[in-house]
């Protein structure tokens, strides 16, 4: 039965809205970082998540419908959310802390040069955990994108905000592509029994 359940579960997350908003959140954190308003970063999810809920309700649910998963799956989803939240918080505070403390104090030159990559690399770690927690391989792709973006800013000696912004834009664009495909593939359906 797990194969059929996996298929139904994955169908529920193929609309791209999660990717779009995750990208927007990462991008907003990046912009806040670039503007030296790092404290604004953690507020971004609080501001954007209600719009995600609204978009799902207005665009996704009339096409895909709504489903409650069985208790085992619900427990797995809850564990995934908690793991993601924990990794997200650790990544954000570790990224910020490491960046602020190590940018001028790294003992060896090459480690100092890698410091700007940390925030994006830690966000990539969050994506990798989410990929495992939710069983969605494309999130692993985003992990690679954030890691590469981090290495790019480290190599070019740029502000870490650029990596978050770049990775965020790439993730959001992937979400827009998925959403466009979803809207084309799924028409609005009748909500009630005839």
């Amino acid at each position, binding site marked *: *039965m797990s194969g059929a359940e996996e298929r139904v579960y994955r169908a529920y997350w193929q609309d791209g809205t999660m990717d779009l908003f995750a990208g927007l959140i990462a991008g907003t954190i990046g912009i806040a970082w670039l503007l030296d308003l790092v404290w604004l970063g953690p507020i971004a999810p609080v501001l954007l998540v209600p719009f995600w809920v609204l978009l799902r309700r207005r665009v996704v*649910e009339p096409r*895909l419908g*709504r489903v409650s998963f069985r208790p085992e799956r619900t427990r797995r989803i809850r564990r995934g959310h908690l793991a993601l939240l924990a990794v997200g918080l650790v990544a954000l505070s570790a990224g910020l802390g490491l960046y602020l403390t190590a940018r001028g104090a790294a003992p060896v030159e090459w480690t100092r040069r890698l410091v700007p990559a940390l925030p994006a690399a830690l966000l990539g770690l969050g994506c990798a955990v989410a990929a495992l927690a939710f069983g969605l391989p494309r999130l692993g792709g985003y992990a690679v994108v954030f890691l590469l973006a981090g290495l790019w800013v480290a190599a070019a000696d740029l502000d870490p905000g650029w990596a978050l912004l770049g990775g965020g834009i790439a993730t959001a664009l992937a979400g827009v592509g998925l959403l466009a495909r979803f809207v084309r593939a799924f028409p609005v*359906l009748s909500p009630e*029994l005839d």
Partner: protein
Amino acid sequence: MRALPLDAKAVASLDKVLHEPARLSVVACLAVVDEADFVFLQSQTGMTGGNLSSHVRRLEEAGYVTVKKEFENSRPRTSLRLTRRGRSAFETYLALMRGLLDAIEGESDR
């Protein structure tokens, strides 16, 4: 070509309500979730609203699914759930089909 030695009794005992592709796909979908709404079942089975309605009605008459109609933010919403009887019938159907397929495969391997 030799006829396969299928158990005629087993074939005859297949649940006629479930042994229909459209209804089987509805029940298979409901079997892996707790509850799904009418839109979700249409999107997953590819059936039209009218077609799905007639099959759901048949499943409801057989006592395999329960249908709950409600309004949410003044919009109609119909949600469906597999009953215990429906789940048990589906599991019996799967076991019978597995047995029949095993018998066919066993015969064709000889």
